[in-house]
């Protein structure tokens, strides 16, 4: 009976270890692969966002040190800067979805919230 008890505890510990490891790997975002992961296609139209201040997104205009930065394209800079690469998904989702959600809660016209395929589509030709 004592042997069975030890086996049970060992089984529970192994299961807990596997689950804990899986959760840690999942939550940590596996940073070693984040930089090499190809981005999903993304479409963004300036025309739809004309009512908003450019600086809401283009923060590099007000930060002098970024003026001489080698990457001036939003995604390129965030993807190639080692500190930003692992959190690029979270940052951009918070930026775009957060703003859309805020408008939706105010019952105003807003962009998509949690509808991945609307933003993550092949880029359409510019409308202006």
């Amino acid at each position, binding site marked *: 009976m004592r042997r069975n008890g030890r086996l049970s505890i060992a089984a529970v510990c192994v299961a807990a270890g596997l689950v804990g490891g899986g*959760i840690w790997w999942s*939550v940590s975002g*596996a940073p070693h692969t984040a930089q090499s992961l190809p981005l999903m296609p993304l479409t963004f139209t300036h025309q739809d966002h004309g009512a908003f201040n450019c600086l809401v997104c283009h923060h590099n205009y007000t930060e002098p040190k970024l003026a001489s930065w080698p990457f001036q394209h939003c995604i390129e800079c965030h993807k190639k800067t080692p500190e930003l690469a692992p959190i690029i998904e979270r940052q951009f989702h918070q930026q775009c979805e957060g703003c859309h959600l805020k408008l939706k809660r105010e019952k105003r016209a807003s962009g998509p919230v949690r509808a991945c395929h609307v933003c993550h589509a092949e880029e359409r030709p510019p409308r202006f």
Partner: protein
Amino acid sequence: MSECITLAALLALLCTAFLLVCVFAAGQPGIAGLWDLAMIGGYSAVFALFQMFFLTGRPLDRPLYEGRFFLRLHEYTAYLILLLVIAHVIGSLWAEPLLWRDIWPPVLPVMQTGVLASLLLATLAVVSQPRWKLAVFRNARIFRYCHYGLAAALLCATGLHAWQADFRMAAPALTFSLIGMSALALAVPLLVRALPVQARRGEKRLRNTSGLAMPVVVTLGCIGLLVPILCAMWLDR
């Protein structure tokens, strides 16, 4: 029979209250009909999972039914969770097919915890079948420990999945409630075993009552599906 109706009504009431709090307490708007339905359906599965930690298959003092009734109740609730999880997964993939790409790390941690929870649920469903139970576990004690261990891992992964979704659980009060309920659910089966068994005073358990487990679970299933449909319609009206 009246005790069975009382139990079904109590579970239905608790499930409804749980779902209404989850849906409306954070004040989030509706997204899209099918998406909201799939997400709220996921909370129905969470409620049924919590319930399984309280109705663990051990006979309770009330209703005074035979032990098999409580075992059946536990078993059928597990099948209900499987159904609700399948509906949750199919509904969300139907509403947003691109989620399929987020299953693989490291894109969205919320999806990976969801996959982990689904795998744990599938594992539990298979190894808890009587035929597999004998083949995998040497005796009832080992089964009990491993079943509790896997179920605890499932509850943690499910709670994490709901919290990481960060939408209807966005309010701190809801997050702390989820943590508190998970901790309570994990503790209850251990506490019940630790407490001394009270002697009954001449009352006998009613025989041939295991069939009554089905209407209780069907009631819970109906509420678990009907409330999400009504909530999704209300949010997206």
